[in-house]
C-alpha cells in the first residue's frame, strides 16, 4: 500500500485515527536505561507503556513531517537570519571552488 501520511493535515489524521478499528504491531529494541525512563514516564502520565510510546512517536512523526515544510525562527535565529539576508555577501570562497567543479553534462534534464 502506498503511504499517504505525508499528505495529511492534523484534522485528517484525527479523523482517520477515529475510524480505524484495526491496530498493527510495531516492535523495536531499546537500551535498558531508555526502557526504564519510558516506563517511569508512562506510569507518571497514567497511561500504559505501549500507548505512551505510540503517542510520543506519532507526535514526533507529525512534527518531523511539518518541519520539512515549515520552520519558525525566533529570537537569535530570526536576528541572524535577517542579518544574513541583508548583508548580501555572495558566495564564499569554498562555495565558488565547489561550483567551479560543476560539470553541466552531469545533469540530464530533457531525458
Amino acid at each position: 500500500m502506498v503511504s499517504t501520511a505525508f499528505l495529511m493535515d492534523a484534522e485528517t489524521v484525527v479523523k482517520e485515527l477515529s475510524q480505524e478499528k484495526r491496530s498493527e504491531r510495531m516492535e523495536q529494541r531499546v537500551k535498558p536505561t531508555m526502557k526504564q525512563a519510558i516506563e517511569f514516564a508512562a506510569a507518571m502520565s497514567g497511561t500504559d507503556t505501549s500507548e505512551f510510546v505510540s503517542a510520543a512517536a506519532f507526535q514526533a512523526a507529525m512534527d518531523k513531517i511539518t518541519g520539512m515544510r515549515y520552520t519558525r525562527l525566533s529570537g537569535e535565529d530570526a536576528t541572524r537570519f535577517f542579518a544574513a539576508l541583508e548583508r548580501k555577501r555572495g558566495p564564499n570562497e569554498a562555495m565558488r571552488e565547489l561550483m567551479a567543479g560543476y560539470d553541466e553534462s552531469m545533469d540530464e534534464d530533457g531525458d
Partner: protein
Amino acid sequence: MEIKVQPLAQKHSAMLATFRCGVRSIDDYLDQAYGLQEFNLARIFIAVEAANKNNMVGYYAVHNMHIEADTMPMPFASMLRRGAMVGAVYVVMFAVDRRYHNQGIGTNLFRSALKRIKRIPEESGVWAVVLDALNDDAERFYRRFGFETLVSNTRRLYLPVNEIA
C-alpha cells in the same frame, strides 16, 4: 566515478527498490517518490552511473517550504505583514548507495542540487535553501560553504540564495 543526474521517471522504478544507502529511513523515502512527484509535492532526482545507466548510485529530493519569523527588522518589516510566511527551498536529503560511498558522489549531488536551486529565485521570490544535516560531519561540510546552523535546531542549516555560486 562519473554520474548522470536525471529527474525521477518510470524507467527508474526497478532501481528504487534495490537502493540501499545504509540508513533505512532514507531508503524508505523512495517508496513515496512517485506519489510526491505526481502531486508536485517534491522533485526527485536520481543519480546513475554514466557508464551503466541502470545502476542507481544516489538521489536527492527538493521541495519548497515556508519560513516564519517572530520578529522582523527593517527593511523587511515594512514589506511584510507580521506573521507572513516566506518561501524557501528544502533539500530533503542527499543519499548515496552503500556500494558507492567515498567516491565524491555526494559532493556532485550537492552541486547538482545547488545549480537547480539557484535558478528558482530568477523566477519567483525565495529567501534561502534549508536542509537538515544527518550528523556532525555533514553539518561541518555544509558550514564550509556558508550555511548557518539554527540555534533552536542544531541539525537545521540555511543559506541565503544569493550565496549560491
